[in-house]
């Protein structure tokens, strides 16, 4: 593989920054959630890049665990969004002000 590893890290950094912009700018809870997924994927790409750079499979295993945690997080997060929508009839994060009901 002759592509420099730094290019992959830069791509991951750009994608992470775009995910950050999505989290900061949006008010729709689903869009914020998608942006968080983008950030998680960028970090996974970084892990796999470093695994290749150091010839160490531990990075790939860590990315695998990260995917599992991301899947669990999506399941719980979407359930929370559905629950908030049932309660408030909107998923605007500015409207959701209280944590208990």
């Amino acid at each position, binding site marked *: *593989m*002759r*592509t*420099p*590893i*730094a*290019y*992959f*890290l*830069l*791509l991951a950094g*750009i*994608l*992470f*920054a*775009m*995910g*950050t*912009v999505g989290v*900061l*700018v*949006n*008010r*729709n809870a*689903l869009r914020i959630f*998608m942006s968080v*997924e983008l950030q998680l*994927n960028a970090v*996974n*790409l970084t892990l*796999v*890049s470093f*695994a*290749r*750079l150091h*010839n160490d*499979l531990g990075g*790939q*295993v860590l990315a*695998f665990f990260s*995917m*599992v*945690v*991301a*899947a*669990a*997080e*999506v*399941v*719980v997060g*979407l*359930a929370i*969004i*559905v629950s908030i929508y*049932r309660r408030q*009839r*909107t*998923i*605007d994060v*500015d409207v959701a002000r209280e944590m208990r009901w």
Partner: protein
Amino acid sequence: MPLDDVVFWVFAPIAIAAAVGMLVTRSVVYAALFLVVNFGCIAVMYLVLDAAFLFAVQIIVYTGAIMVLFLFVIMLLGVDRIEVRSEGLWLQRPIAIVLAVGFVLEVAAAVRAGIGFSTHAPDGFDLLQPAGNAQAVAEVLFHNYFFPFEATSILLIVAAIAAMVLAQRKVRAVTQAELGAELEDEPQDEPGVEVAP
């Protein structure tokens, strides 16, 4: 030009363009589909980085399961009803973009200081995995990371139960005996009323 470079320079702009599309599109469904494209490009990057197992897992888990879940929730709540129209703070968008550009520059500086822009991956990665990437990952996973793997199974069970608890409607279960008693007593309220938490 080596084939790896070709694949990278074809799919990296697509990934970035899909991320931009996800940020600027008005429709939530389009945003989800742009995200699918982005995940597919990242999967190809895994393939270039000799992580064939993660390539398959990425496509199955992310572009398959997670995005189907997203689209399912979008359709469940209603596409036109989940649009959020409230306006943000007036400087929020420019400040976020400035911060993002600063972050990218900082990552570039850190990469340049850390490994340099021309460092190639060392050879010999194939020697680590004589029987293929999946078997090599499994060897590391089940020898060195077995306890975290087991903890992951607990995490998934807890997440599945949490999703069921959170997403259920608060409907009280009514047994056959209660139903019969209520029918005899001319119930005041319907079975299946909301129960106070």
